[in-house]
């Protein structure tokens, strides 16, 4: 049986529209994940043992269980808690809770990558800690976490495909809809894979560029 592409080319615009939802959900999850990551980082360094234990537990659970399960849990658990949240938001929440754990590690890595000597030099000049944070640490951390953040965004674009299972209409779900109409699953899946590939490959190139730029400043 040969592959016939003409059915799929009709559907291409429809599929491309799906990528909008894919990008939207991933972008929001990244932003929210960044906030979660910051909170988790603060929690890890907190004075309160309970808070530290909670964040460690959270990270262990998030990194030790499948994202797919986390998506299902958020989708089914939120109504049980009385919150009626639409699919898109539920997906964003699940993805950002997942990303947050990994992003907090990126932030931690970025903070550790700044040589302690630079902080010594700042203190020796009489700079107070708020100033040191604002002028020395923060600018460098932001530059350092940009490459891993773009990688995380790429990962989110791929993870968003799982949201098709809870009915969110992004690229993968649209692919399934096209298959429902045309019954040409091989062609549709190959095309869909190609669309994801283009997005992720382009982002990969961006990530590599960012890594190079970040490395230029480092001694």
């Amino acid at each position, binding site marked *: 049986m040969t592959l016939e592409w003409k059915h799929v080319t009709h559907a291409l615009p429809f599929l491309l529209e799906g990528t909008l939802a894919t990008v939207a959900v991933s972008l929001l999850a990244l932003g929210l994940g960044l906030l979660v990551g910051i909170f988790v980082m603060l929690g890890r360094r907190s004075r309160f043992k309970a808070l530290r234990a909670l964040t460690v537990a959270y990270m262990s659970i998030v990194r030790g269980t499948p994202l797919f399960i986390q998506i299902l849990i958020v989708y089914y658990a939120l109504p049980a808690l009385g919150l009626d949240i639409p699919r898109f938001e539920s997906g964003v929440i699940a993805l950002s809770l997942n990303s947050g754990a990994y992003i907090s590690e990126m932030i931690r890595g970025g903070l550790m990558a700044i040589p302690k000597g*630079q902080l010594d*030099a700042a203190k020796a*000049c*009489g700079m107070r800690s708020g100033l040191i944070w604002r002028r020395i640490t923060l600018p*460098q951390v932001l*530059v350092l976490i940009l490459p891993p953040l773009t990688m995380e965004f790429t990962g989110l674009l791929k993870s968003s495909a799982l949201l098709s299972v809870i009915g969110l209409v992004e690229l993968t779900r649209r692919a399934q809809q096209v298959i429902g109409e045309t019954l040409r699953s091989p062609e549709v899946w190959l095309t869909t894979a190609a669309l994801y590939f283009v997005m992720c490959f382009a982002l990969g190139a961006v990530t590599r560029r960012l890594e190079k730029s970040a490395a230029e*400043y480092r*001694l």
Partner: protein
Amino acid sequence: MMSGSMTSTPIIRVQNLHKWFGEAHVLKGIDLEVKAGEKVCIMGPSGSGKSTLLRCLNFLEEASKGMVLLDDHPVGYIEEADGKRRRDTEANINRMRARMGMVFQSFNLWTHMTAAANIMEAPIHVGGLSRQAAGEKALKLLRLVGLEDKKDAYPARLSGGQQQRIAIARALAMDPEIMLFDEPTSALDPELVGEVLAVMSELARGGMTMVVVTHDMGFARAVADRIVFMDHGQVVEEAPPSTFFEQPKNERTIQFLAKITSRPF
């Protein structure tokens, strides 16, 4: 430039300084005085506590016991009426630090800023200078260390010697009363050491009070008013360079000098 009192009151006084890192007793009761305009070189084998002592002077390390006095004011602590002491406010500590300039073995330039920005940073944000005034000052200091043309360069593009000279300019930017150097040339390739020592000698000639932890005997001989030899956390011997190098008194000093000069005494 000299900006301390012209009398012989010491700018820095260290009294019975002790420091423990966990179990290790790194400073065992150090007493030291540095007068205005003096150049003091601290020498000694690795692990003798010389860097720790220097870092205690500007409170980058907190001493376990004893006192450091800057112009008769305790650094880092306030003495209570009942003789007890408590940690001074962050603001006061920072103010004291700003009166001392420090140059580090690993330069520690802020890599996300240009050379000029490194120099201007503290004057603007700690000294309250305007961007304009700070910029002019930075330019003057860059000229002083011979790197005016590198003002917009990032540290990653500069050689070690250039970075260290910028670091010296940065430390001078706050018009300190005293300059502290922590092994400033130890991390440099041999051919780059000269340019940094030249700047330091120039500084010394201008009258700056300097405390330099160094291995460099040539510099110590040429510039120091006094050599302080430390070993295992104690000051073993103190003398002007001529006496120190030609007629060392203490056995440990003699052994140390023999090792680094391979000259029998």
